[in-house]
């Protein structure tokens, strides 16, 4: 664990520097994502111009939710950008080189890339959180904690999806699709989920623990709500580590259908 903590920031910083190498590409991708998020927000602004709330969720609550998911996706892409095509990295056999080095493979995989477009998510997400999320500065530590836990759940789920590549050749696009669904599910108010869909967003597609539980914690702080948010982060992280290790063991037994 110490090995990861000592080298991860350096590797992530290197990935960020690499993403900045082509300035034009960086600015285009970042700007493009910011505009894309802007259009998405505009739809909600238009909606709230006509309605006061949706299933009990007002404009500020939606701003908090959207600010959280955009910031989470932004931080993930900037500092852990390797998650986005981790399945592709596994399937191409590129982790062979990482397996000959002494540091844990998962950290190397997450830090091998930084996505320029993620800066667009991060900037817009922070602006929404600070400007429209109706949070006071006193809530800043709690908001940071909730954000961190949501980030852990999001990255854990995305990593678990990517780990499917250890079992199936077609997992590259499937893992991406699942992660995109996860972002989509995390962009809607909790009140639209009920019955089976609610079960899904609190298990396989844990949008409930990425944004819904953190929003509840920030709106109605309490030990119970905090326990749910922190507990979910711990449980999802542990499950993902177990899945990844199982998959890696399978890879090392030569059972993963790589192209390398």
């Amino acid at each position, binding site marked *: 664990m110490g090995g990861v903590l000592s*080298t991860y920031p*350096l590797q992530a910083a290197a990935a960020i*520097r*690499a993403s900045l190498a082509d300035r034009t590409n960086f600015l285009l991708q970042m700007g493009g994502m910011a505009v894309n998020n802007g259009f998405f927000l505009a739809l909600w602004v238009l909606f709230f111009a006509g309605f006061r709330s949706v299933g009990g969720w007002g404009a500020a609550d939606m701003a908090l939710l959207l600010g959280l998911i955009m910031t989470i996706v932004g931080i993930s892409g900037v500092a852990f950008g390797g998650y986005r095509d981790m399945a592709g990295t596994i399937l191409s056999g*590129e982790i*062979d*080189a990482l397996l000959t080095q*002494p540091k844990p493979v998962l950290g190397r995989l997450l830090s091998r890339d930084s996505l320029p477009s993620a800066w667009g998510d991060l900037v817009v997400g922070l602006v929404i959180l600070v400007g429209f999320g109706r949070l006071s500065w006193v809530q800043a530590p709690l908001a940071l904690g909730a954000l961190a836990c949501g980030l852990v759940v999001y990255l854990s789920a995305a990593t678990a999806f990517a780990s499917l590549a250890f079992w199936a050749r077609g997992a590259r696009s499937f893992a991406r699709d699942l992660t995109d669904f996860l972002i989509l599910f995390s962009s809607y108010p909790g009140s639209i989920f009920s019955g089976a869909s609610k079960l899904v967003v609190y298990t396989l597609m844990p949008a409930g623990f990425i944004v819904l539980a953190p929003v509840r914690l920030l709106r109605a702080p309490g030990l119970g709500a905090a326990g749910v948010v922190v507990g979910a982060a711990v449980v999802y992280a542990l499950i993902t580590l177990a899945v990844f290790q199982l998959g890696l063991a399978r890879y*090392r037994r*030569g059972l993963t259908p790589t192209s390398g």
Partner: protein
Amino acid sequence: MSAVITVQTLTKQYRYARRRTGALGAITGAFAPDFQTIEAVAGVSFEIAAGERVAIIGPNGAGKSTTLKMLSGVLEPSSGQARVFGLVPWRERRALAYRIGVVFGQRSQLWGELPARDSFALLRRIYDQDETAFAARLGRLVEQFGLGELLDQPVSRMSLGQRMRCEITASLLHGPDLLFLDEPTIGLDITAKAAIRDFITEHARGQGQTVVLTSHDTRDIELVCDRVIVINQGRIVVDQPTDQLRRQFLARKRVTLQSAAPRITLDLPGLTVLPSQPHTSVLDVDTRLVRVEQVIAAALAGGGIEDITIEDPPMEEVVREIYLATTGA
């Protein structure tokens, strides 16, 4: 000398689902896959002593890379035993990583968009290297490998040969005692290949380093290694000093002549004319009986030569010849 690598009846089997033809086959295959097992490495045993430079050669799919991956801890074997510096590679992978350097010819351990210098600095942290010792080692390697002008250049803008020099340098920065090179000259031009071979040989001799190399190129083996292990279909066919192998099996060249005349006829010993298109003559030259320059001189003396190519016979042919000679098949 003490053995750095000990391998006993090492085996690796891969299982894969055989694809069936047609739509019905695809559907039944999805629910009841027809699994096939192939033996990539079939019970190989050998020892490599400290300071030896050993080539593992063989045709595509012979089991060379799989053997290297098991010895470097990437893959677990199906059965058998191996120890590298007394460590079981697949169980003590991280401890072993500090003592070995690995280069996979078609994989990179460098950050493509960053200058090589930045990748090297990161590798120092990954291998927990002391800054002073690292700087001294990097300085020596940069001088030895002529990397001065490349250090501040992004790796993605380097030629393949330049990138490979940086890859090998990266694998040596933590001062490993053993270097695994999987196809280090693949895709390189002649000059770049020569530079890589010189560097590996010079560095390994100077440091007393053990080198295990896989290659498709017989020149890599002749110029870099003092011992050759030939693998075919997962089994060791030959394990002998390079000099001996060279005398027996690496004494042939392939000379291709493009000519105005439909066919070139040369009356020299040691020449075998291989089937080819009109205006192209492909000659198999046994260099124990005739020198290549004698063949070229004779061809030029006849006139009408438009182009000449000199190559080593393909590895597949060399291995087939070795296999036939050793098994008597």
